[in-house]
């Protein structure tokens, strides 16, 4: 971990804090209102706002998690920083791909 990685990991965490509150509120609302999948999709499909919100969330979570994974691989996996960085980058790219695919599934019309 160096200053640059620390900046991105802590910065992404700080940005995600209010987004997590919104995310939890959405879950609470959807479950308390007993919304069906069809009802949820009817509200999210074609919505630029939800697409941007969850798209940004996926990018931030991927940055945050991949830097943390690199740290774990270095400290507990005894990998060198270069190897850990390579594995963590692949992991982060996978998170972005899977996350954006999930966002696309609920916001694309």
């Amino acid at each position, binding site marked *: *971990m160096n*200053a*640059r*990685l620390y*900046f991105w990991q802590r910065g992404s965490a700080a940005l995600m804090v209010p987004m997590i509150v919104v995310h939890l509120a959405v879950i609470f609302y959807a479950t308390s209102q007993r919304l069906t999948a069809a009802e949820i999709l009817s509200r999210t499909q074609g919505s630029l706002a939800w697409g941007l919100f969850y798209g940004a969330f996926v990018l931030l979570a991927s940055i945050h998690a991949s830097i943390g994974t690199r*740290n774990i691989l270095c*400290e*507990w996996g005894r990998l060198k920083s270069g190897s850990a960085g390579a594995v963590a980058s692949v992991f982060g790219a996978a998170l972005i791909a899977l996350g954006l695919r999930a966002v696309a599934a609920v916001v694309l019309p």
Partner: protein
Amino acid sequence: MSEAVSTLKVSLWRGGSDGRFKTYTVPLKANQTVLDIVTWVQRHLDPTLSYRFACRVGMCGSCAMTVNGRPRWTCRTHVTKVIQNGMLEVAPLANMPVIKDLAADMRPFFEKWVAAHGTFAASKTRTDAIEPIKPDEPARRAADEAIECINCGACYAACDTVRWNPDYLGPAALNRAWSLVNDVRDSDRTSRLAAISAEGGCHNCHSHQSCQEHCPQSLNPTRSIAGLKRLSMQAFVRGEINA
């Protein structure tokens, strides 16, 4: 010291990193320190026992060892306060190579101290006027607290992050850097911040606070490291350092 009133079984680490504990029976006396016990074994039972000490009054930081699993300064640790089930186990400090018996190799510890730019870099010469330093300014107070470190290595031996990451500079070196970045007379601030912001620097600290828990001087290196993280981030955002 008073007359011996009973005996104590003490296990001392013997040999290098592949050594083992050897048990000795020593007289238990009043006001006896762990260092007294180790010295008694060397003087009376085995003159080949190796260990390190100098001042015997808690100033030099030479005699730290692992006592019943915890790093402690042995010259100021009373035996009666650390005995567990009538046993005392003394080993060299953890997270450092073993030279022999109870003497740990502190070279990595001090090499990291140097890597963290732990030496004072004067901003003035002896021909300049003496700069007045106000003792009650926040920066000076922070420096004054951190500067009380005696470099015994107890914090380094107790640090989980040092154990996981051998490249981590460790609490003592970073605490020293913190004392210097708060010293207005020092001229090496930016390059010191760059040094402690690199891979293995202050940002590896998980704030477990073992350093604070085990510091015999009751210092708080975790707070020093948190201060360095703040200054490092400020310097990084301003573009003063690259990482």
